[in-house]
């Protein structure tokens, strides 16, 4: 019908009209299909819903699991590192100390691990239908954000119970800055996850390494100990580890523990920006041919 209105158009003129999709062999390293991903918002929201709902369908406690897991882990940490190993927490109640570290760390670990098996985990769908692949890690990130929000509220309740948080101005500042911390952590997890998911299409070995690496990484991050506990010659770990500053800063904002070394933030920003760019680039490059190899 469109042609009836401009019936005079000739074939050549029509061909020169803009095509909606042009598929060619090579696309740039930095063509991330962000526009198309944005147009797939409805798909992203459905994927988030699927992730969230499928976790607790047919469970008795349902969404409560999002709370039980960090509380139980924190209690184990309190027992293991606080009561038995007697690791100092710098005067902060051990329960709050470990919970604050875990809430941040869990968010990072989930952001990383849920985006790191995109191709292998969705091979079946990817080989049958096309949609912007970036929607999948973004949806994973959003459902992690929801989990984080629940666990964060849990942390706030615990903090209030321990007599923290009475200055409204400090709370407002901390809330705003926490948003930035969350954004930073999400981008770091996404960047590394995208790198790993792109590389695992070629080398499945990486999948085996990942869980183990994540565990080691947690111990290199001040989740269960304050940075001050590290001997001077090992402090470098907390500077080159891009997850050390958000964990330390989160604790600083809400519990008033010492601030992280500014150097660690500078390093962290550079690392995160670089790894995110590399991850997006690898991912967009891999997705075009991934179905040929998985």
């Amino acid at each position, binding site marked *: *019908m*469109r*042609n*009836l209105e401009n*019936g005079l158009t000739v*074939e050549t003129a*029509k*061909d020169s*009209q803009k*095509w*909606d*999709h*042009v*598929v*060619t*062999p090579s*696309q740039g390293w930095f063509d991330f299909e962000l526009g198309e991903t944005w147009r*797939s918002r*409805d*798909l992203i*929201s*459905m*994927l988030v*819903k*699927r992730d969230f*709902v*499928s976790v607790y*369908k*047919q469970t008795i406690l349902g969404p409560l699991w999002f709370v039980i897991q960090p509380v139980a882990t924190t209690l184990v940490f309190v027992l293991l590192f606080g009561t038995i190993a007697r690791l100092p927490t710098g005067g902060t109640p051990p329960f709050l100390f470990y919970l604050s570290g875990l809430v941040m760390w869990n968010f990072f670990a989930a952001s990383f691990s849920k985006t790191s098996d995109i191709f292998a985990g969705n091979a*079946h*769908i*990817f*080989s*049958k*239908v*096309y*949609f912007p692949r970036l929607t999948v890690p973004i949806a994973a990130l959003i459902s992690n954000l929801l989990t984080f929000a629940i666990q964060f509220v849990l942390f706030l309740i615990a903090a209030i119970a321990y007599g923290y948080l009475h200055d409204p101005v400090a709370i407002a500042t901390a809330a705003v800055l926490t948003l930035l911390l969350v954004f930073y952590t999400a981008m770091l997890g996404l960047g590394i996850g995208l790198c790993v998911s792109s590389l695992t*299409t*070629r*080398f*499945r*070995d990486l999948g085996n390494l990942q869980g183990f690496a994540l565990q080691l990484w947690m111990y290199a991050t001040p989740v269960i100990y304050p940075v001050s506990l590290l001997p001077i010659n090992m402090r470098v770990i907390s500077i080159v580890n891009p997850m050390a500053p958000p964990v330390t800063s989160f604790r600083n904002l809400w519990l008033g523990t010492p601030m992280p070394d500014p150097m660690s933030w500078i390093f962290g920003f550079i690392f995160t920006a670089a790894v995110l760019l590399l991850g997006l680039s690898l991912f967009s490059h891999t997705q*075009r*041919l991934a*179905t*040929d*190899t998985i």
Partner: protein
Amino acid sequence: MRGSETIIKVENLGKDYRLGVINHGMLYRDLQSWFARWRGRPDPNAKFKDVSLHQEEEHRMRDGNFLALDDVSFEVKRGDTLGIVGRNGAGKSTLLKLLSRITQPTRGSIKMRGHVASLLEVGTGFHPELSGRENIFLNGAILGMSKASIRRNLDAIIDFSEIEQFIDTPVKRYSSGMYVRLAFAVAAHLEPEILIVDEVLAVGDIAFQRKCLGKMQSVNESGRTVLFVSHNLTAVSKLCSRCILLSGGRLVADSSTAEVLNEYVSAVSSNRKPSREYPLPDGPFEARIRRVSVTGPDHKIASVRDLSEEFSIEVDYEISEPMEGLSIGLQIVSVEGDQTVISLSDPELDWSRLEARAPGYYKSRVKFPAGLLNTGLYQVRVGMSSKYKIFHVVEDIHFEIIDNVGIVVPLGYERKNSLLAMQIPWELRS
């Protein structure tokens, strides 16, 4: 008027696949393959299929790449229904994958206008824990529908699926029939400008298939462009006004459906021979198949065999040097069903023949009982291999089974609805 706008333009499209060494999923295997090739040994991880393709379709190999699709160009106008036909391995699936952007071409380009939806499968992304209703939204979103459009069509989708009373039950409790109905109901309500459909119609019961065919026809009447790939020539001729024929990765015909289907059918039958001889290669060889024949009880070669008679397949082969572990593989493939019916290897039971064999010309035969195969067209594939090497594969022998006597075909049916037609007697137990 509306048929004049070009909505899809495919130019010089090509897709290569690297064979055998694409990826083993494990660093260890990659290294193993590299090492073997470096030493000039056969790749221990190469698959049988890779090697047989290598020999069978040498013209499709270039620099170690397999040309799944080569230099394909065509255009589709708005409102057209284009059928894509060709035998298995002709490149149909590759073309579909490229058109639906699942993978990227190696050469050439595809340009399209408007929203594209591809149905290479129904029910992609269904989550077993979610209810039918939730899966309509999820699957619809994966197929590119907006939430608003799904909501608008929700009643129609549920109605089309005929499973209204189970719509809030998790789909893992569905029977496979219900699952497919729901999945197709979603797919049928897509509203793209271009719809790409692979043989998804081959699902569900006959009544439901008819309903789907009808729905697809109505989709086309509303001015949408449909690309339809199928083995079901009846469905193709019913739905499509124009067809393209692929063969060996290339486009060999692009014309009206009647003409293309004619060409397709005659190309298939002119190549059908029940017996072939194969010359020795010019250079040195290790083992070659020399002759394959389908013969009747009288040892005469004939391309048409009666269902009620036994038949044999004779394979002659030559070995130029003493050889251990030699085996001859034989497959009978139903051409219409595209399914391997029988797969045998010599020696199937007599392991002593795996021991060293002297050079020479061997004649072998395997007999099949009467009624083993139902009526239809069959293809014979024969391969010679040792443990790590495939010497020769041939698959250009065909024969047809007909039913002269008519005893096994119930009145009013073209063909008994089974692969095998063995006549096995019943006895009365009381």
